[in-house]
């Protein structure tokens, strides 16, 4: 894959696990010109504290908006649940969501027909080879993909050639201390 894989320096905990999945997707997905980000944090709206916007870290440490940018064929970022569970205090499990937003015509220029399910298949095929991420569901639609994020200003829609979906799964990582 070509594009822009925004990795972090010295990632720890869930960031380390996410970066492994992120880099695997970047290396193995048969797509060109993809913008990849790691874990997004929820930034509250300055006036309404129940509204959040996703913000990610770029490699240089700057914050960025990870939502769709049509300069790229696809944009991918991760979110994690607020709570991570552990049984013995070393191995932690957290619900993680991989949000994929893409232009199907740019990702599959030679594919005849509707390519949204093909995109799901390509992502799941790569994720199958990753041991620390176990997919549990695949979702589409604004509510399913962006959940509690503020979608008021999101203009892009789930209409061909634009498509977005999310893969939710259990992310496992170690905290050794």
């Amino acid at each position, binding site marked *: 894959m070509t594009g822009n894989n925004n990795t972090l320096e010295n990632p720890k905990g869930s960031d380390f696990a996410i970066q492994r999945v992120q880099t695997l997707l970047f290396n193995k997905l048969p797509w060109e010109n993809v913008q990849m980000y790691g874990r997004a944090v929820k930034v509250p709206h300055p006036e309404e504290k129940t509204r959040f916007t996703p913000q990610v870290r770029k490699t240089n440490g700057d914050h960025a908006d990870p939502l769709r940018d049509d300069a790229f064929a696809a944009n991918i970022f991760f979110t994690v649940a607020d709570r991570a569970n552990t049984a013995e205090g070393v191995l932690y499990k957290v619900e993680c969501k991989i949000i994929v937003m893409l232009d199907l015509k740019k990702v599959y220029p030679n594919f005849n027909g509707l390519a949204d399910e093909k995109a799901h298949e390509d992502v799941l095929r790569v994720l199958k080879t990753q041991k620390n991420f176990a997919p549990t569901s695949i979702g589409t639609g604004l509510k399913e993909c962006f959940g509690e994020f503020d979608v008021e*200003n*999101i203009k892009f829609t789930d209409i061909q050639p634009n498509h977005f979906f999310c893969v939710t799964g259990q992310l496992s990582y170690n905290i050794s201390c």
Partner: protein
Amino acid sequence: MHSETTIQYVMGSVGWNEPINMPGIGAISDLNKASSTGRLFNGFHALVTSEDVYKTVGDDPLNNDQLNAVLLGFKKQGALEALTLIFNNSPQYNPLEDYAGTVVKYIGVIHRVYGYVVAAMAMQSMLTSKRINDVERKTRYGLLKTELEGVKNEKGVTVSRGLISRQAYAVSEAQKIIFPNDVLIIGENVW
């Protein structure tokens, strides 16, 4: 009609800012940066920058040549519109007179109209953007409409002035300076 030299003179009075943090698009041309007054369009409104134009114009990202052509297009159309608003729309405009010398003399007031005209044009272009990115989300419709047209309360009183209102004020101020004499109606009393 104004001569090409006059139009070019107005076009050179205010310039576009050099894009920052935009790797891949390169520098903008000297013609686009040219500013004889030292003023830039983002000085007339903070949203009117070459970066925001780059992110909101066209169906797909522009290359350097396309961006320069778009920016120059704004400059040219803005200069024509500013000259029309100040001169051609004035009751004292004489179509047979060449205003080239007047434009050079009064560029200090004409450039303000020009700046606001280009800022409003760029903002109208952002309003109809088909692009999808962080700038497109930041410059959402409601915000742009407010910045462009201002806000009036329920009694019709202006609470905040938009670019179009500032442009109209700049035109009226420029006309007062360039054509200081009122229109004289010479004729017999009809009563």
